[in-house]
């Protein structure tokens, strides 16, 4: 303890002892009469300190390290969770790595789509053309995901519906594209 603290401790204890002494033997304190200023001053000082203490408490955050979940056995990952994370990261705009995520999502979907179409019998070039033109599916959102042209001739109602929907365009298109591919893959 530093000497300042030591001094304070001594002073505080002395005051308390003095107060107790006067309480026990009132004649000791007969000479001293504290006036109203001292009274109010002490009271206000005490209230100010109390305010500081309360504020210190409100600012103190208690972060306890996580405890192990011993009751449950270790759970395993499900295939495709990483892709879901990338899709979710893509949805939040303005982040630096959302561009990289977008590219990875697009590349992976494109590779899988080409593979599905090739398995159905198309040559690889024909498959890529079908993706670019949107001729591989009836679903316009799914087609729009792979199409090079973002769709200049989209109707006003579609634009309105798109802007009002909460889901970002690219994630919605990705969902539709995956569903369309799943339907196609199940046919075999």
């Amino acid at each position, binding site marked *: 303890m530093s000497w300042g*603290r030591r001094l*304070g*401790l001594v*002073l*505080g*204890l*002395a*005051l*308390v*002892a*003095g*107060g*107790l002494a*006067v*309480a*026990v033997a*009132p004649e000791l*304190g007969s000479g*001293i*009469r*504290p006036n109203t200023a*001292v*009274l109010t001053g*002490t*009271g206000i*000082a*005490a209230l100010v*300190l109390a305010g500081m*203490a309360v504020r*210190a408490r409100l600012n103190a955050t208690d972060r*306890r390290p996580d*405890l*192990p*979940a*011993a*009751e*449950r056995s*270790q*759970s*395993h*990952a499900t295939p495709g969770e990483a892709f879901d994370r990338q899709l979710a990261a893509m949805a939040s705009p303005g982040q630096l790595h959302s561009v990289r995520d977008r590219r990875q999502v697009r590349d992976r979907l494109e590779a899988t789509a080409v593979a599905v179409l090739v398995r159905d019998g198309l040559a690889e070039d024909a498959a890529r053309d079908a993706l670019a033109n949107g001729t591989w599916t009836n679903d316009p959102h799914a087609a729009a995901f792979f199409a090079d042209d973002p769709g200049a001739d989209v109707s006003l109602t579609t634009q309105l519906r798109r802007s009002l929907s909460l889901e970002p365009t690219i994630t919605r298109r990705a969902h539709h594209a995956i569903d369309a591919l799943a339907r196609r893959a199940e046919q075999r």
Partner: protein
Amino acid sequence: MTATATPPIDDTPARTSTGLALAASLAGTLALAVSTVSLAFGGLGFVLVGLGLVRGWRSAVTLGGAGLFCGVVLAGLVGAPASVVVFATATTVVAWDIATFGIDVGEELGREADTRRLELVHAGASVMTAAIPAVVGMVLFRTAGGGTALVPIALLCGAVVLVVVLRP
């Protein structure tokens, strides 16, 4: 360990502590029956503490404790007997301590775990920590026989200095 789907434990506040804390805050509220205002604050505080214990909300418990304390201060301002004021303060602090302890134990160890001994030892220690200054203070207060204003001033100044020194 990886995250699991279902929450591993029932994390509601521990039973023993909940019961003891409710009893303590009830005792404090009843002691505040000296005036209607203090009883109102005390009752509100008791309800908040109970709500916090049922749902595991620490903020409700702290607010409830503050409410009870306001009741104590109001009772003291009105001129309630010293024993009532000191007793109500002590029960307020003890109730808050036991309640937040119960919430902590519930979150960390869960209801299924055997924690009776832990909670009883803690409650006992809390009561002792509150009782010693309360009893000593009451004894001195009685022997002082209604001393001058100097006594409380000196004690308060001493308390202020001690608080400043004791802050970490």
